[in-house]
């Protein structure tokens, strides 16, 4: 008796969640493509974005768009600073870089715990009420966030394909050595790239803060999911990540609606392990 409105509702919700994972995944891909490291502090930058949004709206009563923009810029600057001060020394050694991001993650999380305490805090809702599309009920706040994140994705696409720095950064992400040969000064792009990568994660955190509550470990779930999106989509391939993010978002929403949700998550990991083993380069990643 599940009418198609339920299915539509689940799919739309899946797309909104998928866009969140995609923002995180692109951020992760930029950092991985540039520095060949798995950024374990990605979750904490998502949390950073969520808390900046919380302070911006709950404290200073700023309009949502302004807060989201401010979050991105703060995170971009902070990310670049972190790269220059800490990760710069480890550019050659990917493993130390990876473990350093674990340390950075721990520091950010404990600072947040000390300042904001462990309990969830609610961000005043940015949009009340619902939108009805042919019987399907879609919470306005989520659509708002979904539309906004898709807007960001489009700007990112424009930045990567039609601006000088964007194309250079994309070249570096795709193949660091080839970019160097073409005379792109890679070392300039390290801080910007890391800043942009974690900036996108903070952006996702800020967009989703009004929908979910905000607490120091809020970023862990989305980080794990963005890892899966990047693996399934193929490390370093942004179009692959886009497809994988939507598949994951929708399947998670559908399985949450129709299946016992915790099974879905367990099988998801099994699927990822299987995929990694059979097709390490992922769906669209090139066989390097």
């Amino acid at each position, binding site marked *: 008796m599940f*009418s198609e409105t339920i299915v539509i509702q689940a799919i739309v919700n899946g797309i909104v969640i998928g866009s969140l994972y995609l923002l995180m995944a692109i951020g992760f891909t930029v950092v991985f493509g540039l520095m060949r490291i798995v950024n374990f502090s990605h979750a904490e930058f998502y949390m950073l974005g969520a808390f900046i949004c919380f302070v911006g709206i709950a404290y200073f009563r700023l309009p949502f768009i302004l807060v989201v923009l401010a979050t991105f810029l703060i995170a971009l600057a902070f990310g670049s600073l972190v790269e220059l001060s800490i990760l710069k020394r480890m550019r050659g050694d990917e493993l130390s870089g990876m473990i350093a991001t674990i340390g950075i993650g721990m520091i950010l999380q404990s600072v947040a715990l000390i300042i*904001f*305490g462990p309990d969830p*805090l609610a961000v005043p*809702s940015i949009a009340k009420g619902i939108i009805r599309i042919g019987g399907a009920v879609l919470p306005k706040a*989520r659509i708002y966030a979904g539309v906004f994140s898709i807007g960001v994705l489009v700007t990112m696409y424009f930045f990567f394909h039609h601006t000088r720095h964007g194309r250079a950064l994309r070249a570096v992400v795709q193949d660091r050595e080839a970019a160097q040969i073409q005379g792109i000064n890679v070392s300039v792009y390290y801080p910007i790239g890391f800043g942009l990568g974690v900036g996108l994660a903070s952006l996702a955190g800020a967009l989703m803060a009004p929908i*979910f509550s905000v607490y120091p470990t809020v970023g862990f779930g989305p980080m794990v999911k963005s890892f899966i999106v990047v693996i399934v989509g193929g490390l370093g391939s942004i179009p692959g990540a886009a497809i994988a993010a939507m598949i994951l978002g929708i399947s998670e929403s559908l399985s*949450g*609606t129709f299946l016992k949700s*915790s099974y879905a998550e367990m099988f998801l990991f099994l699927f990822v392990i299987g995929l990694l083993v059979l097709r390490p380069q992922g769906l669209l990643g090139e066989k390097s």
Partner: protein
Amino acid sequence: MNFKKTIVALSLLGLGSLAYAADETLDVGVIATISGAGAGWGQAIQHGVELAAKEVNEAGGLEVDGKKYKINVITYDDKYQAGEAVTAVNRLVHQDKVKFIIGPVGSAAAVAIKPVTEKNEVIMSTMAFSEKILNENSPFTFRANVTTVEFAQPQIDWIVKKYGIKKIGSFFPNDETGLQVSKDVEKAYGNAGVELVGKEFYERDRVDFVPMLTRLMGLDVDAIELNINAPSSAGLIVKQARDLGFEGLFIRTGGPSTQEIVNVAGEDASEGILVHTLIDPDLATTQAYMQKHKENYTQAMNGFSPSFYDTARMIFEAIKQANTVDDTKAVVAKLENIKDFDGAAGKISWTGQDTYGINHQISTPFYVAEVVDGQEVIRARCTVETGCQDG
């Protein structure tokens, strides 16, 4: 906006009262969830016990066997994880040599540490809802608050009669407590002639409830049962359900934490929720306790706090009557026989002989209240024996 004071300040407060004249100290252990999901209930235990201790110390200490004891509360955070609770109870029993422990919050933690407290004859008074806690071969274990086994049936009968509910959906955390409570709640609604349709179990740290809510609304339930979900999860469920346009009734049979739910869901979304509560604001003794709580702590007082204040005072009373701080067998004998103790939450005695085979389940009055503009308004007064009447 009240940022939480850091935990360090709180535990220092507990040690702060060193300067009193009493010559001996009696250590009392508290294992509670101070951080993570369920932190509100953990602080209810910690604050209730600390206030009871402060009261005794200000009166010159607990007089036992000719000596005056100053009560020192040692608190450990179990982060709602059984493993952490076990480490904490090992430290309390072996290092701090404590004979009385109050807490923990979660059933998983309580089940895990009970073997240690029973083996070392340490009295434990927990909040955990699991039925595995109380039985005849756990003489040193008590429960300091009523559970769904006690209050579910009377409350649900009253609500079903008053609001005429036909179909109800429900959410449960996927752990020991959730499993246990889902059985009690389903039985109670069955007896009241209501069909419990969607039974949703979810992982503790889940934040997106829209998919599950979509399914429940597809079964067009006219009410959603929140029972003992952690306050943050319950708040999210209410908020996201209202976002999806759900106009039905929310019922929370269990775990008083209205303030936290309102914080997360917002005042208008949580308008009209029917909650179980242990506090009647008009009761003089409860008002006195709420005032004392406001003087000492910035956080909002949680509904469980009075029962743990009373539990601590009953234990101190039993120690005085048994005239010993070490012979816990004697203290248990005295504690079991306390009747009509006038606590902050009203008249208190023990029950549980028929359901658990041991009379270690506290029986305090409880109420059904409706959330109006973010505040609880009493709608019915109930006790285990007499059921609920319009109040």
